[in-house]
C-alpha cells in the first residue's frame, strides 16, 4: 500500500512539474486559474475581507505551530516518540518539496490582482497550504484513534483547508491550482511516511492504557494469525483476545480460544518488539553499563527462538513455566507467535491468598533456577502465576543460562519482594532461610536497588510504602552494597556517540524549526 502511495505521488509530481515547466500547458493552466479566481477577487466585500485576511494570517503564521506543537506534546505524553518524529519529518519533507519545486516552477503570485494577504516566494505549490495540510494530517495520525474520532478529524481538516484555501484565493496570494497542489503534497507525503514507518496495524493510536507497542490483532493480522495457527499447528481458532497487556512491554500476549472451548496462550513478536529490545538494552547500557550479556537480538526469529529455548530449558530443569507448543510464522522475519499452554484458573501472585506453602513454593522456584544455572531476570507479580499450590514463572524472554552470581542474587531479592508485598518481610525472610543462607540473602539485597527491579515491581514496592528493601537489609547480616555501575571504554564511547547524535539532531532541528513551519 505504501509503495502504491509512493508511486502515485512520484507520478503526480513528475507530471505536475513537467506541466509547469513547459510553456504552453503552464500558460493555459494559469489563464484558467485567473479566470476561476477573478469573480472571487473582484467581488471582495468589506465585511468578508477582515476574516479572510485573518484566516490567511493565522493559517500562514500560527496554525502549524499551534497544531504541530500540540500534537508533539500529546505524542510525547503518550510515549509515541515514533509518531512525533514522523510529524517533524513530514513537515520537513513537505517544506523541502514545496521550496525546491517552487523554485523550479517560479510561478508568480496571481497576476492582475492586488495581493492583500501575507505571502513569501513563489506560489506553486502553495507552501503555507502544504505545511498546514501536513501539520493537520500528521497531528491527526499522531493523536487520533481510527474509527469515529478519525472520521470527525478528517471532516474538520477538510473544513479548515477549505476555509484557508478560499482565504488564499480571496486575498489574491494563491491560484486555485497552487492550493490544490499544496494539499496534494501535504497529504501524500504525510500519509506515505506514516504508512511506511508507523503503519496503523502495527502502531495503532489508542488511549485505553497499556503499552504502545502492543499490536492490534483484529483485521488482516487477526486473519493471518488464525490461518497460520491452523496451517502450522492444526489449531482451529474460535477467538483471539489480548490478555495481560499491562504486565507485558516486550510483546503482545494473547489468549487463543480453540473451537473446542479450550484455551492457549501465545506471545506475538514483531519487528517493533525487536526495536524496543534494542532501545531498551541501549538505554540500560548507557545508564548502568553492560550489567550482563545485554546484546540485542538481530532478528525477530532469534528473539522468539530464545524464548522458546528458555521455556524448554526451564521445563527440563523442573521449573514450572509454561509448556511450549511451538512457534508459528505469521510473516517471515517480521512476525512470529510463540504458543504455549494456557494456565487456566491461574492468577498473578499478588491476587492469590498468600500462605507459607505458597512462599515456600516460590522460593523453591528460585532455588531450582540457581541449581540449574539459570536466571529469570524479570521476576515481578505479573510473571509469577499461581494455580492451586503450583507456582509458575512465566515470560522467560529475559532468561539467561549461566548468569553471574550477582544476577541470580537479584532474582532472589525480587522474588522476596514480590512475596513480601502481600505478606510481611519478616515471614518471607524466615521462610527464605530454609533454602538460602543468610549471606546469600544479604548479598541479594546488597545487589538490589531501583535499576535491578522490573518497573512493575518497583512501582508496587514504592506504593507499598513499607521500605521493603531496607527492611530486608536490616533483617539480613550487614553487607556492603554491590556496585552496579560499570564504566568501560565502550560505554564511554557509546555515551559520547549518543550525545553527539542527539546534539547534532537538536542543532539541525532548532536551525530549521522556522523553515518547517513550527515557529
Amino acid at each position: 500500500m505504501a509503495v502504491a502511495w509512493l508511486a502515485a505521488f512520484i507520478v503526480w509530481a513528475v507530471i505536475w512539474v513537467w506541466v509547469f515547466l513547459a510553456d504552453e500547458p503552464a500558460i493555459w493552466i494559469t489563464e484558467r486559474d485567473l479566470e476561476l479566481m477573478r469573480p472571487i477577487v473582484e467581488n471582495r466585500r468589506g465585511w468578508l475581507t477582515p476574516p479572510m485576511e485573518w484566516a490567511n494570517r493565522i493559517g500562514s503564521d500560527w496554525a502549524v505551530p499551534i497544531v504541530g506543537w500540540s500534537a508533539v506534546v500529546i505524542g510525547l505524553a503518550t510515549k509515541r516518540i515514533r509518531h512525533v518524529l514522523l510529524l517533524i519529518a513530514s513537515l520537513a519533507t513537505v517544506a523541502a518539496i514545496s521550496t525546491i519545486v517552487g523554485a523550479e516552477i517560479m510561478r508568480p503570485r496571481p497576476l492582475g490582482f492586488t495581493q492583500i494577504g501575507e505571502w513569501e516566494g513563489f506560489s506553486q505549490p502553495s507552501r503555507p497550504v502544504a505545511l498546514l495540510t501536513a501539520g493537520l494530517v500528521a497531528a491527526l495520525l499522531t493523536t487520533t484513534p481510527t474509527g469515529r474520532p478519525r472520521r470527525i478529524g478528517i471532516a474538520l481538516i477538510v473544513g479548515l483547508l477549505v476555509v484557508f484555501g478560499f482565504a488564499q484565493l480571496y486575498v489574491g496570494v494563491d491560484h486555485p491550482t497552487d492550493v490544490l497542489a499544496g494539499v496534494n503534497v501535504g497529504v501524500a507525503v504525510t500519509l506515505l511516511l506514516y504508512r511506511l514507518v508507523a503503519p496503523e496495524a502495527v502502531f495503532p493510536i489508542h488511549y485505553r492504557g497499556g503499552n504502545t507497542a502492543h499490536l492490534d490483532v483484529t483485521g488482516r493480522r487477526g486473519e493471518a494469525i488464525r490461518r497460520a495457527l491452523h496451517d502450522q499447528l492444526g489449531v482451529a481458532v474460535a477467538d483471539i483476545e489480548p490478555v495481560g497487556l499491562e504486565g507485558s512491554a516486550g510483546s503482545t500476549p494473547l489468549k487463543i480460544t480453540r473451537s473446542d472451548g479450550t484455551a492457549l496462550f501465545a506471545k506475538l513478536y514483531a519487528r517493533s518488539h525487536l526495536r524496543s529490545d534494542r532501545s531498551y538494552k541501549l538505554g540500560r547500557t548507557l545508564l548502568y553499563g553492560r550489567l550482563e550479556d545485554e546484546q540485542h537480538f538481530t532478528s525477530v526469529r532469534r528473539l522468539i527462538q530464545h524464548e522458546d529455548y528458555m521455556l524448554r530449558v526451564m521445563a527440563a530443569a523442573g521449573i514450572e513455566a509454561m509448556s511450549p507448543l511451538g512457534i508459528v510464522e505469521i510473516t517471515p522475519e517480521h512476525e512470529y507467535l510463540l504458543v504455549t499452554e494456557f494456565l487456566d484458573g491461574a492468577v498473578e501472585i499478588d491476587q492469590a491468598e498468600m500462605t507459607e506453602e505458597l512462599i515456600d513454593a516460590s522460593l523453591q522456584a528460585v532455588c531450582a533456577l540457581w541449581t540449574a544455572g539459570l536466571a529469570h531476570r524479570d521476576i515481578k507479580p505479573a510473571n509469577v502465576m499461581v494455580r492451586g499450590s503450583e507456582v509458575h514463572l512465566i515470560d522467560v524472554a529475559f532468561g539467561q543460562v549461566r548468569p553471574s552470581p550477582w544476577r541470580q542474587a537479584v532474582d532472589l531479592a525480587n522474588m522476596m519482594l514480590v512475596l513480601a508485598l502481600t505478606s510481611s518481610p519478616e515471614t518471607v525472610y524466615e521462610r527464605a532461610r530454609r533454602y538460602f543462607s543468610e549471606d546469600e540473602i544479604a548479598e541479594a539485597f546488597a545487589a538490589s536497588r531501583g535499576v535491578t527491579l522490573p518497573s512493575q515491581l518497583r512501582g508496587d514496592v514504592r506504593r507499598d510504602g513499607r521500605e521493603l528493601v531496607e527492611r530486608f537489609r536490616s533483617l539480613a547480616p550487614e553487607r556492603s552494597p554491590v556496585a552496579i555501575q560499570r564504566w568501560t571504554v565502550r560505554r564511554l564511547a557509546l555515551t559520547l556517540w549518543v550525545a553527539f547524535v542527539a546534539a547534532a539532531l537538536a542543532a539541525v532541528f532548532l536551525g530549521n524549526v522556522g523553515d518547517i513551519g513550527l515557529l
Partner: protein
Amino acid sequence: MPPLLSLLVLTVSIAACSVEQTLPPPHCEQAGSGLIVAQSVPDAELVPCVGPLPAGWEIDGVRIDDGGTRLRFDSDRAGDDAAVLHFTRTCDRGDAVTVPSDRAGAERFESIERLVPGFRADRYYAFEGGCVRWRFDFDDGAPAGLSVELGSALVLLSRDDVNEILRETFIDEEL
C-alpha cells in the same frame, strides 16, 4: 543510527534549504523571480534586478515577500553579508544627503558612517511608490570602491519593462 532517526535527520537537513536559500535572484532579462520582486512592492514604478556581478561577489540569500525584497551579498574581500539590498515601499533615510543620481527616474542619497577600518554606509534610490536601499558593512581593510563595483550590478527596470518581459516570456497579463 535507527532508520527513523536517519529519516528525520535527512528530511530536516533537506529543509535547511529554506525559501531564502533557494529563491533565485531577480535577473534583468527573465521573468523568474523578477515578477514577484515587482509584486512585493506593488506600487513601485521601478523594480530592481541584478545584472552580472563583479568578480568576488555572490548572492547568499534572497527573500521576497509581501513586505518587500532583500538580497544578501557575500564578498571574498569584504566578507559575508558585506552588502544587503532592500526593496521596500519607503525608506527611512535619516541624515542621508542627496547626491547626483546614476539611475533614471530615481533620486540618490548617501549616508557614510565610516570609511576605515571597514567601510560602512547606506545608499538609497527613492522613486515613485518604492525605494531601494544598499547597506554596506565591509570587513576591515576592504576598499570602499567595492561598493561602487557592486552598485553597478543593480538595474532599475520600469514597471512597464517588467510587464513587457512578462508578456514576452510568459503570459499576456499585467502585474
